[in-house]
């Protein structure tokens, strides 16, 4: 079996061996359910738009929580030494953990399909194309945030420190669009390009542009590479 996959399996198992993953999933689903149900009952709107609007905000809290321990816990308990002295590449360690966290996010997103069923039962016309784009965008966003979380986890042996670092890095990408009015004109383009929301809104509108996809994938790879570098540089003791 592929070593990356073996590690992913181990991480998924350890997610579900502990209550933390269940708690995160339950809270995620409660909140996303509430944001789906309230416009449904208050405004008589049966659509997933507000749900797609709120999930990036939920990510801001949940992804740091599910990624914080991935490497820092191994550093803290010393098992990183065990893992790193097994015949597995650092790159495979990072990727194994990345896929595990993305899989957990995917499981969370899968559960939100229940809202789609509600809409279909209520008889609303569903634009499956834009729905697909919406989920694709959320998955890509989850990948970026996971890689940031793993990077933060790889630079500290303290989970809480990792949580705070990843929260603030994600927050930076999240709020940068609100600062566009403060930056000089010639920088607006650059800042807009950095802003996650700019790319995400394109995708969730139903436009799949390679530029946006490349943005998400390159940002993910950048942080995974940084995490790998941090892991390789083992002089923390």
């Amino acid at each position: 079996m592929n070593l990356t996959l073996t590690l992913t399996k181990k991480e998924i198992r350890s997610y579900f061996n502990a209550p933390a993953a269940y708690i995160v999933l339950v809270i995620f689903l409660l909140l996303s359910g509430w944001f789906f149900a309230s416009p449904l009952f208050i405004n008589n709107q049966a659509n997933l738009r507000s749900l797609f609007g709120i999930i990036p905000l939920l990510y801001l809290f949940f992804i740091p929580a599910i990624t914080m321990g991935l490497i820092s816990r191994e550093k803290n308990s010393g098992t990183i030494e065990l893992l790193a002295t097994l015949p597995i590449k650092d790159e495979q360690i990072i990727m194994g953990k990345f896929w595990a966290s993305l899989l957990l996010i995917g499981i969370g997103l899968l559960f939100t399909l229940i809202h789609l069923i509600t809409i279909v039962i209520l008889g609303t016309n569903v634009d499956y194309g834009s729905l697909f784009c919406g989920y694709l965008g959320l998955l890509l966003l989850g990948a970026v945030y996971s890689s940031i979380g793993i990077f933060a986890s790889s630079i500290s042996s303290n989970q809480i420190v990792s949580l705070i670092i990843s929260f603030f890095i994600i927050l930076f990408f999240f709020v940068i669009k609100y600062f566009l009015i403060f930056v000089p004109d010639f920088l607006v383009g650059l800042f807009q390009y950095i802003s996650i929301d700019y790319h995400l809104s394109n995708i969730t509108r139903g436009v799949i542009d390679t530029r946006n996809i490349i943005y998400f994938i390159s940002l993910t790879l950048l942080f995974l590479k940084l995490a790998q570098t941090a892991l390789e540089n083992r002089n923390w003791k």
Partner: protein
Amino acid sequence: MISLKNLTKDYGSLRAVDHINFEINDGEILGFLGPNGAGKTTTLKMITCFLPITSGEIEVENMNIKNNQLEIKKLIGYLPENNPLYVDMTVYDYLKFIADIRIIPNFKSRIKEVVERCGLNGVVHKPINTLSKGYKQRVGIAQAILHNPKILILDEPTSGLDPNQIVEIRELIKELGKEKTLLISSHILQEVQAVCNRIVIINKGKIVADGSTEELQSNFQNKTKLILGLMAPEAEIQEIPKTIDEINILSISKQDENSFIVELEFESATDKRAEIFNFVKSQNWTLLEMYRENISLEAVFRNLTIEGGEK
């Protein structure tokens, strides 16, 4: 075979390992001895490809560590210091995970074999965090030997265990030493003395001694101590060196009314026991006991590491 050439490791400005050289031959059980903080663990971490080398070279089976890390990792079984384990897994799941990463064919029968060998039969399906420290140590060793490695590196394998567990683990190590090249680090002398056939002593990042147990003992002091239990007048005991040459009295301690324990030291390697006995007989003293005491490895170790510290 593992060979270290001018191996050096710096942590910032601190030099943890300072140009050390030694070789571990196939089939050897090498004890890597030194006080805490001497650089033992750092050296082992470099051999197992965990820490990068500052300068120097490590070769394992003629492969340089710089470009053959994956191959070298496959040859080595490693029990890190403090025995880190994935404690939320059961023993079986843990060994299965290691087997998957190491790509062991027929892992089921191999796990069974190793479990039996390490005496883990009763606890295979228990979560590791419910096991006693001795069992955890066995799990750590089971993990290290799972892929039947040629080289086994154990970093302080018995630290923190109770005396019974220490004996058990040592038996297991001795058993393993029959078929593998073994490198064991320890700061406990008896342990190294009990299982190893060669000892390298490191202090402050430098190697201060390298040789077999006997060699180290004899190199460091040719002098042998002789302990006598005598019933004789104290003043006359003081006179012994006047009659017998090349003998010093180290101490005389009073046991009761008229018996003494006398510690003697020979100045040369010649055995003077017969002369002493004859002398005692001629004086009509009563000899209660007489035995030789070899300079213990402990004394050698203290000598080396404390002297090294003062230099």
